[in-house]
């Protein structure tokens, strides 16, 4: 357990996992001709799915930390929120690049921009790009902690739009989106319940700690 925590808290390990997912699911199949009959379409879908799960992962870290403030693993993972968030943006950009390539030419690309389905995806990507660009310490200082935090709450807006974007992507089914929605809702609800309980009674040291951490 201790070893796992130590390994997981390493920045290099986090980076390797986040890049490794893309290498394993996108690059290796592409280089070994394992993408099937419609390679770009496959890359488009897989990169989109990675982006969804990465954004879901980063958004579940804050509530997890509030719920399990003493879990060393949760704390280890929380060190990497910046990396995970930025990689959600990177996979989103890969997804968008695949979309551009898949359309083939300008006319078809412009056609795709007439669809609300595409707008929702672009809205999410724009948010993620802004958040990734302001994810550095310099931006936190420049904006001030309060404004920076407010800006980065846009991640929740992005997740909501993304869930909608994905749920209409399937033909009437929404396998991925509903799991993401369910887990985020459960975690956030639990987090809010715990926060309101600790606000009422600031006696237990554990809840005080949770309160501090969440601010």
């Amino acid at each position, binding site marked *: 357990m201790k070893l796992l925590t130590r390994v997981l808290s390493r920045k290099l390990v986090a980076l390797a996992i986040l890049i490794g997912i893309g290498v394993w699911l996108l690059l290796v199949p592409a280089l070994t001709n394992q993408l099937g*009959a*419609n390679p770009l379409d496959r890359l488009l879908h897989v990169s989109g799915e990675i982006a969804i799960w990465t954004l879901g992962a980063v958004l579940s870290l804050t509530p997890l930390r509030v719920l399990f403030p003493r879990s060393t693993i949760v704390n280890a993972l929380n060190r990497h929120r910046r990396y995970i968030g930025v990689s959600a943006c990177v996979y989103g950009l890969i997804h968008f690049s695949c979309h551009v390539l898949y359309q083939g030419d300008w006319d078809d690309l412009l056609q795709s921009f007439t*669809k609300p389905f595409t707008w929702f995806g672009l809205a999410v990507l724009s948010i993620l790009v802004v958040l990734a660009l302001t994810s550095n310490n310099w931006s936190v200082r420049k904006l001030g902690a309060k404004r920076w935090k407010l800006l980065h709450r846009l991640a929740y807006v992005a997740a909501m739009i993304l869930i909608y974007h994905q749920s209409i992507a399937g033909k009437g*089914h929404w396998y991925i989106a509903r799991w993401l929605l369910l887990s985020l809702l459960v975690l956030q609800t639990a987090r809010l319940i715990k926060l309101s309980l600790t606000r009422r009674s600031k006696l237990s040291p554990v809840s005080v700690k949770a309160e501090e951490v969440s601010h």
Partner: protein
Amino acid sequence: MHIERKRSWQLPDSAVTPETVYLGRRRFLGACALGLMAGALLPRLVRAATSGFPDSLDQAYQLSGVKLTSYNDITGYNNFYEWGLEKSDPKVNANRGWKTDPWTVEIGGLCAKPAKYDVNSLVKAMGGIEQRNYRHRCVEAWSMVIPWDGFPLAKLVAMAEPKPEAKYLQFTSFMDPKNCLGQRSNDFPWPYTEGLTLPEATNELAFLATGIYGKPLLNQNGAPMRLVVPWKYGFKGAKSLVRIDFVAEQPRTLWNEMAPNEYGFYANVNPEVDHPRWSQKTERVIGAGVFGGRQPTLKFNGYGPEVAGLYAGMDLRKNF
């Protein structure tokens, strides 16, 4: 004076291979087939429910100027949600012990001669099979060219003798939740159903396919018999049929039930009417590669001369 008007799909005589060459080709192919039969294909050919019929290309449906999609792509890139949501799933999941031989098809509803057929004897009753090269356009804006083997649906309709009140045909796919994982989920109103109007069903192009590239259909392509309507989006081609019914009212169809704003009953290929989420003006050709780009989609998938008359006066935007 007798003037013969050529149909758009009829080729000039000059395009026809001389008979001697053609027969020689068949001898050559026959020798190849014998060689193959000695090999690994033997079990599949003997076991398949629709095997054992001589087959040759119907020259009227040769389709010039297009490249046939590879057998590998046709049998490895399938939308067959009963066997998984990924295109590569059916090839794996539909071949884990799902039996498509023997197979019974029931023809019923408003017709004079309802009957149950073993699929092999049905093919026999239809006078065997022929090969036709058809364009295949998926509603997801990709396309293939597929050499189907099978027989015209019109023959089956004629045999069943529809009653005057029969206006539509309903096609029903297999239902086997015990062996079929996808059908255990209630996300879809299984079994898969599709429908055609009677005039559509008796159009010369409507086809019941039992094979691809001269081989019996593989499970992932809808073995042993499926519908093929090349001027409509691919989802109209219901796979692994167990029932064909003559009905008076427009039948329910699965995708129309799932998303009526996206998938209409007619589902004719039409570059002028977009899908809500993407344009239908162009299509990706399967097998053309990553940078293969797109080609323009043709109205009625290029079969306008044969089928446009079926929809004369109809608002195709409303009846998409």
